[in-house]
């Protein structure tokens, strides 16, 4: 490696390792406070809740989404469900109408205006103490709402995020995402302990209604309104919690183009929102989100890009040398030297990468445990490494490029590919 390449590697890997150690130390310090309830619970008080479901061309999954809400173990007279059709062009509205007879469900149709406009319309109709959304490609666990609501006994808590789990992963892309989602349960809980959650995800994050009354409704926010509202809350000094045992199952993209578009939107939104909220950056007043989450989020993007480039150079060198060998002596291979410890690569970079990957694996295992699964690695976890090593740089580079030129990637566009 050249000196410049070395320096970049050491700086980026130091920062990546720093973040992982930070999460580990937080885990060791607070592991007793991670609440995982396996049995149904009873609450002393059931606050009224509205769940808004924005839909755009989701006729395939919306029925299951609404049924999961109706199946929640929560007093139905305390639960309002608002289904908003954001100008779907398929049969979504017909499906929604079939639910309109149910007492606590309200169905609204509007012209297409983007996800945030659909939720905002629902917010206008909300009269309850708590409010949340549920994306129309997600389903909730029976106990999820009660478990989330139990966190609101803390008067300071203004929003609570659930744990999102990949619904029935089938192909290798979905299995790769499963490992990623499991790991993010761990990351999210640790960030919650530190007060550093930077996104209150669309599927089933629950807020006090007063958040919107005080801070205003959702904004377009580069099509990632769920990131912007979290940053706005941090700016106002609000506390965001994570309820690890509130499970929400979501359907994840099953083809590369769909995944690409989703990630492009997320990352583009992350970069633009992080820039919009630069006033949070490195300011101790705003806590962990400005010191750890946003800066290290950016660092991880560069790290992935660098690792990709690094890998690409190695692959090219290897192929080049193979081609030269074939040109020189043909396809016939020699006996080879066999294994000898002398030829093992033992540079410092190898040991640093081992340390980082061990901590990442640890996070994955703990996340899996929190999701209610057994604490073990699966063969398919290797897809996670492959997909993120090989493909993530594509959407990272594109998101960075678009951020510079302010090219938006839309929510409705993403759904058209289905």
């Amino acid at each position, binding site marked *: 490696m050249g000196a410049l390449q070395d320096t970049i590697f*050491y700086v980026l890997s*130091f920062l990546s*390792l*720093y973040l992982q*150690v*930070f999460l580990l*130390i*937080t885990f060791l310090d607070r592991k007793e406070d991670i609440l995982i309830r396996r049995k149904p619970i009873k609450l002393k008080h059931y606050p009224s809740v509205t769940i808004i479901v924005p839909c755009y061309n989701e006729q395939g999954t919306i029925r299951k989404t609404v049924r999961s809400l109706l199946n929640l173990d929560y007093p139905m007279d305390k639960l309002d469900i608002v289904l908003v059709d954001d100008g779907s062009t398929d049969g979504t509205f017909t499906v929604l109408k079939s639910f309109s007879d149910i007492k606590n469900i309200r169905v609204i149709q509007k012209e297409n205006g983007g996800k945030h406009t659909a939720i905002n319309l629902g917010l206008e109709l909300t009269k309850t103490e708590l409010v949340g959304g549920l994306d129309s490609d997600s389903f909730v666990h029976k106990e999820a709402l009660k478990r989330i609501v139990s966190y609101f006994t803390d008067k300071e808590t203004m929003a609570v995020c659930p744990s999102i789990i990949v619904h029935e992963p089938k192909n290798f892309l979905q299995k790769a995402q499963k490992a990623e989602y499991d790991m993010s349960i761990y990351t999210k809980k640790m960030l919650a*302990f*530190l*007060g*550093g959650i930077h996104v209150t995800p669309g599927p089933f994050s629950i807020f006090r209604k007063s958040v919107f009354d005080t801070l205003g409704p959702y904004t377009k926010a580069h099509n990632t309104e769920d990131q912007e509202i979290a940053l706005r809350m941090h700016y106002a*000094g609000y*506390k965001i919690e994570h309820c690890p045992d509130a499970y929400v199952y979501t359907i994840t993209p099953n083809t590369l183009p769909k995944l690409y578009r989703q990630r492009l939107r997320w990352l583009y939104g992350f970069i633009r929102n992080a820039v919009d909220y630069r006033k949070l950056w490195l300011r*101790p*007043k*705003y*806590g*962990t989100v400005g*010191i*750890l989450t946003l800066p290290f989020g950016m660092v991880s993007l560069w790290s992935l890009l660098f690792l990709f480039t690094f890998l690409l150079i190695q692959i090219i060198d290897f192929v080049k*040398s193979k081609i*030269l*060998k074939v*040109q*020189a*002596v043909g396809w*016939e291979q*020699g*006996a080879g*030297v066999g294994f000898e410890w*002398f*030829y093992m*690569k*033992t*540079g*410092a970079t*190898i*040991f*640093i990468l081992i*340390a980082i990957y061990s901590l990442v694996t640890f996070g994955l295992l703990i996340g899996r445990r929190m999701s209610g699964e057994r604490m073990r690695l699966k063969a398919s976890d290797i897809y996670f490494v492959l997909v993120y090593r090989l493909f993530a740089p594509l959407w990272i580079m594109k998101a960075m490029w678009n951020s510079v030129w302010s090219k938006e990637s839309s929510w409705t566009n993403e759904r058209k590919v289905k």
Partner: protein
Amino acid sequence: MQGATGKRYIFVFIITLAIFVFAIWLSENISNRKIQQLNSIQESIAINILSSETQFALLSELSCKDVSASTLSGELNTLSEKIDFSEKNLGNEAEIIQLKKYYSLLEIKDYLLMQKITERCDQKLFSILYFYTTATNCSECVKQSFVLTSLREKYPELRVYSFDYNLDLSALDALVAIFKIEDTKLPALIIGDTKTTGFRSIEEIEEMLPELVKIREEREAAALEAETADSATTAKLIGE
């Protein structure tokens, strides 16, 4: 506002730094062990060469039958591969260059000794001197190295001495001067008394060393004969 305290940021920094320092220390430690291993291989080769030289000096006037071409070339080859790997993968540049110089000297000594044995004792020894460069991106040199490695595997009798043209070593400079090697015409090979420049394929080199090919053919024929005799004996035994 909840969040981590400044103390925690510093604490985590110290732990991260400790992991970093440990990784670097571990890597250095292993590199040093590898270099030690190279050193000890070189020491043993040096002793072997010195011993052969002494043996030769003692016996050459009397008889040639006790002088054997030493079995060093194999050891020299593994050493060459290891130095090559170390140059690409270990950090300690200065130390590796020292090792490389020492290795080149050992090669020259071995080459001279073999020349003497060939002259006085009429033993058939085959050697190739190979000059390459690491200063420029010489893909022809990489290809030539593959060819020579393959040839060494095919002909155990062949001794290949490879020299990095850019190594700053006076003995090597002398060798370069004797054979009039130019850095613009690398890779260069000295096969017997002939000098060639540019990439040479296996077939081209084999053409220049017909006796070597003959020895291999004879050896293979002998092996085949022994095998046939063996199976004939087995057949006879079964027949009885």
